[in-house]
């Protein structure tokens, strides 16, 4: 969380001015990422103190008044004002023509026919109040004509600090001032004091989860009192929501000292207040309006019922309202775990929860209460009736530090004296030293320091990591390539050369979309999704590519060759790594032959090329497998891809239902990348090509459409009695009248040992023809012409 503080306030606490930017840089190095920001009020220009001399009704508008305003010039200004609180004799801020306010610029203008030479301002218009109020009345001694920024000390800068969760102590001005003090080697000038008598009977603590509880009762306060400017500015800097004077003051104390505070309406309380465990079946209506049913939570209760969920949220019935006159103020320490459990259980997050869950400074419980009482008496009037406190004195945590540990961890030599002085800089005290150990006391505000290593970190912080010299690691090469990255790279090289662009998608889809790619039962749903659009994990990378293509098509991109690597999820226990490819549209939209469109054979060639590049010389084949085909593919047009007869993926167009919604002219392939990684293809040394003459024969077979090319090729390869180097389809003719298909294959025989004799080749062809006839492929004519 970021906290924004007024820099003049920090200067006041430290008793010194400092270079804001330099300090912000040094705080950043120390671990409090800080940035100086210009306050909204410091940007004000041309706003001066003015005295309203007289006001007249506007001749043309009932609600407006025409005022004469003295700003110290010879001639008073005429200003039209719409605020009913304007009256002669008051001093107010006047925005002159050309003035720059946070939300507007003042220009000369006519209001219902009368020229207005400026604007009388409220605090909200000047940007230092978030509350809509009447005109800002300045004190009667305000010097007429003076720049409002000088008069109200508005020329402030702020510092915004990102506070990491371990540094709850820096969520307040005191904590930040302490760290700046380390930067400046300065101690704090203003320190919180305890000036309350604490002589009242303390609140009884009946549950050990509360360690300290202080309270004060004040009667006859004015809840409508106006806060002093300086306090208002400090609250504004921190963007603290304004409620009423008492709550605002308590928020100010929290912002200052870090101690969460709460106030109850004293008149709503019955009998004594105590801290106890909630009883079963008790309930409380809390500030945000919801009724909470309690079990055994830590609560603050009066005689009858709980009045607050301790450290989490107050009760509505006991809360301060604008009619409150008598108050009961609480300042207490509750443990982190209790607060987090309760707030999580009821899903309530408040500023108090935020602070308690990061740990508070027990030593500030009393001073905070003291300061709150002083401020309330000062601002809201009233009289302190009583104050009480219960809790044991705080015992500082002690850590024993081995003096060689800082060297071991940081890697630079450190003498014991240096270790001690560096720890002292952050407020740690050393009580005992031996040769190799020191006993370190941890200040009450440093809840995050629990073990030796935490002290080492403090020492490192104090030295500045910049100043730790580096030492080379003597690394031994250990060549053990990442198979996933290597294979992905090799496949990608093939694909990009063939025109494919790699994409990366979120991979989180709507349930509606995901259901089109897997059964609803298989879709992995996020329990707490961002939105309906991002509710499920993808079950296939194809779904990601289809979405991307859908967007491309909507953007009039008429072609695409895309691929994506990534994980997909079918059932939550299966994490599958895949590669998907997609092609659609014209192959060469800017070429001569624009009629040529991508089809499944294009993507098939790319898949074969990519796999062959990875595993040279291996057998890749394709077959229909209606039983196992993923449900988003067209089952009759989609091929299962086999590498050495093991399935590694699928290739084809979309299922007709998806095709109807998107397009039937997109072709996809999805490869099981895990299977490719697992593929154990024995590495064979490549052989030089044969020097003996090859013999080529063509054969044509007549088949029906139930016999596939793959079956015929397999049959030919398996039936040859001599080395068949190549076999491929060179012609295919489909007779539309009788659905007879004629496939012509070219067979290339070549041996490494000799040139085959015609006789041997003829014998091989004969046995091939015989086997082909067994699978329903009958030879059309023997073409025994030797091509060569």
């Amino acid at each position, binding site marked *: 969380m970021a906290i924004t503080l007024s820099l003049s306030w920090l200067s006041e606490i430290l008793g010194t001015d400092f270079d804001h930017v330099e300090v912000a840089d040094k705080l950043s190095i120390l671990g409090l990422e800080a940035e100086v920001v210009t306050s909204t009020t410091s940007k004000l220009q041309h706003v001066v103190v003015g005295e309203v001399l007289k006001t007249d009704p506007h001749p043309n508008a009932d609600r407006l008044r025409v005022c004469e305003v003295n700003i110290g010039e010879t001639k008073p200004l005429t200003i039209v004002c719409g605020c009913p609180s304007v009256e002669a004799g008051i001093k107010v801020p006047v925005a002159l023509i050309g003035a720059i306010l946070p939300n507007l610029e003042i220009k000369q203008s006519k209001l219902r026919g009368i020229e207005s030479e400026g604007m009388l301002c409220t605090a909200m218009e000047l940007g230092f109040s978030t509350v809509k109020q009447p005109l800002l009345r300045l004190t009667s001694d305000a010097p007429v004509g003076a720049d409002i920024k000088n008069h109200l000390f508005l020329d402030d800068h702020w510092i915004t600090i990102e506070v990491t969760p371990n540094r709850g102590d820096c969520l307040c001005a005191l904590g930040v001032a302490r760290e700046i003090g380390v930067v400046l080697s300065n101690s704090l000038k203003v320190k919180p004091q305890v000036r309350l008598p604490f002589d009242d009977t303390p609140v009884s603590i009946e549950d050990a989860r509360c360690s300290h509880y202080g309270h004060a009762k004040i009667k006859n306060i004015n809840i409508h009192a106006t806060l002093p400017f300086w306090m208002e500015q400090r609250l504004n800097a921190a963007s603290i929501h304004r409620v009423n004077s008492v709550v605002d003051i308590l928020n100010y104390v929290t912002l200052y000292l870090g101690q969460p505070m709460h106030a109850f309406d004293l008149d709503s309380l019955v009998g004594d207040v105590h801290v106890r465990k909630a009883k079963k079946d008790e309930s409380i209506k809390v500030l945000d309006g919801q009724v909470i049913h309690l079990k055994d939570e830590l609560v603050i209760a009066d005689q009858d019922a709980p009045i607050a969920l301790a450290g989490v949220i107050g009760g509505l019935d006991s809360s301060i309202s604008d009619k409150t006159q008598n108050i009961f103020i609480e300042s207490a320490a509750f443990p982190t775990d209790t607060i987090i459990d309760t707030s999580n259980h009821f899903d309530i997050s408040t500023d108090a929860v935020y602070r308690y869950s990061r740990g508070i400074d027990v030593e500030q419980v009393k001073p905070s209460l003291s300061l709150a009482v002083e401020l309330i008496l000062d601002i809201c009037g009233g009289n302190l009736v009583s104050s009480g406190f219960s809790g044991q004195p705080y015992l500082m945590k002690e850590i024993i530090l081995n003096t060689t540990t800082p060297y071991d961890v940081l890697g630079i030599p450190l003498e014991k004296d240096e270790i001690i002085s560096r720890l002292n800089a952050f407020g740690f005290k050393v009580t005992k030293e031996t040769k190799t150990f020191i006993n370190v006391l941890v200040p009450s505000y440093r809840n995050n320091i629990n073990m030796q290593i935490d002290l080492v970190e403090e020492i490192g912080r104090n030295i500045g990591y910049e100043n730790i010299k580096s030492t080379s690691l003597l690394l031994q090469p250990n060549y053990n390539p990442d198979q996933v990255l290597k294979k992905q*790279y090799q496949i990608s090289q093939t694909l990009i050369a063939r025109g494919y662009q790699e994409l990366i998608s979120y991979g989180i889809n709507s349930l509606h979309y995901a259901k089109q790619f897997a059964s609803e039962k298989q879709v992995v749903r996020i329990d707490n999704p961002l939105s309906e659009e991002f509710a499920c994990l993808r079950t296939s990378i194809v779904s990601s590519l289809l979405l991307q293509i859908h967007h491309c098509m909507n953007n009039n991109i008429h072609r695409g060759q895309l691929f994506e690597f990534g994980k997909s999820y079918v059932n939550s226990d299966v994490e599958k790594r895949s590669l998907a490819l997609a092609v659609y549209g014209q192959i060469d939209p800017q070429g001569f032959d624009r009629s040529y469109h991508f089809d499944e054979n294009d993507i098939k060639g790319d898949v074969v090329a990519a796999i062959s590049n990875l595993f040279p010389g291996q057998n890749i084949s394709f077959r229909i497998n209606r039983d196992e085909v993923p449900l988003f593919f067209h089952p009759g047009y989609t091929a299962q891809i086999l590498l050495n007869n093991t399935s590694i993926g699928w290739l084809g167009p979309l299922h007709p239902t998806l095709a109807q919604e998107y397009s039937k002219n997109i072709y996809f392939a999805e490869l099981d990348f895990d299977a490719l990684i697992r593929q154990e293809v024995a590495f064979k040394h490549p052989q030089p090509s044969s020097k003996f003459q090859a013999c080529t024969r063509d054969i044509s077979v007549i088949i029906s459409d139930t016999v596939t090319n793959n079956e015929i090729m397999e049959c030919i390869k398996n039936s040859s009695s001599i080395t068949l180097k190549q076999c491929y389809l060179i012609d295919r003719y489909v007779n539309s009248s009788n659905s007879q298909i004629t496939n012509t294959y070219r067979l290339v025989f070549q041996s490494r040992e000799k040139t085959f004799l015609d006789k041997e080749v003829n014998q091989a062809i004969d046995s091939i023809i015989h086997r082909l006839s067994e699978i329903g492929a009958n030879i059309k004519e023997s073409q025994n012409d030797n091509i060569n």
Partner: protein
Amino acid sequence: MISASDISAGLSNIQSTDNLTDLDALRVFWLGKNGLITKEFKQMSTLSKEQKADLAKVLNDFKSKILDAIAAQKNTLLDRAIDQELSKTKDVSLPSRRMHVGRIHPITQVINKLYHFFELRGFTSYSHDHNFELESEDNNFTFLNIPENHPARSMQDTFFIKDKVLRTHVSASQPRILKSIEPPIKAVVFGRVYRSDQPDATHVPVFHQMECLYVDDQCSFSHLKDTIDAFITYIFGKKMKIRYRSSYFPFTVPSVEIDVWLPQEKKWLEILGAGMVHPEVLRNAGHDPEKLRGFAFGVGIERLAMIYFGLSDVRQLYGADLDLLAGCNLWQ
């Protein structure tokens, strides 16, 4: 009988042919099986020895004149053909065929580049093992010293899926690696991580991280610095001005963040988080933190890609702006 004037007429015929076919026909006319000169040679058998010698001399002279002329003319014609071919021209600006090339995605390019750094330093990259996007809460949080209720758990807005989470950082691989690899450990992990952020110019619900883990019995912050200095120099291709800021991660102590000074923008840019492996993390994996120490550091891949390619909106990396993606070439 062939006369010298016949020959000179023949030679001039040869010299005036304008193609190789005609030239070859003339060769056949004079010197083919039934060519004029061949015939004369054949008829010589009836002559006396002296006549033969005289005639042979004349015929050989004719023959070599014809052959020379044909060879010369052949050269002339070939030269002429080349000249003719050379004088032609084509519109070479007509469209080409299949001119599309794709490119590896910018994020993958950055990963490949970073991987190269670690590969050469003997680190093992785990993409297949110990690297899961759907993780147990223990690996993502508890074993990394982020117990339940720890405020740091709310630092990261986590997607939950039944009893698992979509990992919020690749550090979730640390417990797995620490438990299964014998030290010394030199590991690097790349992968996708998830946070429940609505996509905007600087946030996406899915992004990529790299994390490096080194564990040994002798290992200090000083070693971490050396590795990081080299890493940053490698990333930017030159020595950069950097600063170490103290920071907080539950799984490292001391923890730092490292900023790089961008001279053109005149600002510090946070580039990576690092620290010494927290003793609790080692203990959770069954190691004795008194005997073993380690360091770890991580970097957001998208951030690097955006710097490298001058992108202003991280969502650009997750879309299909093909022109933009095809323009991202890290090795330019």
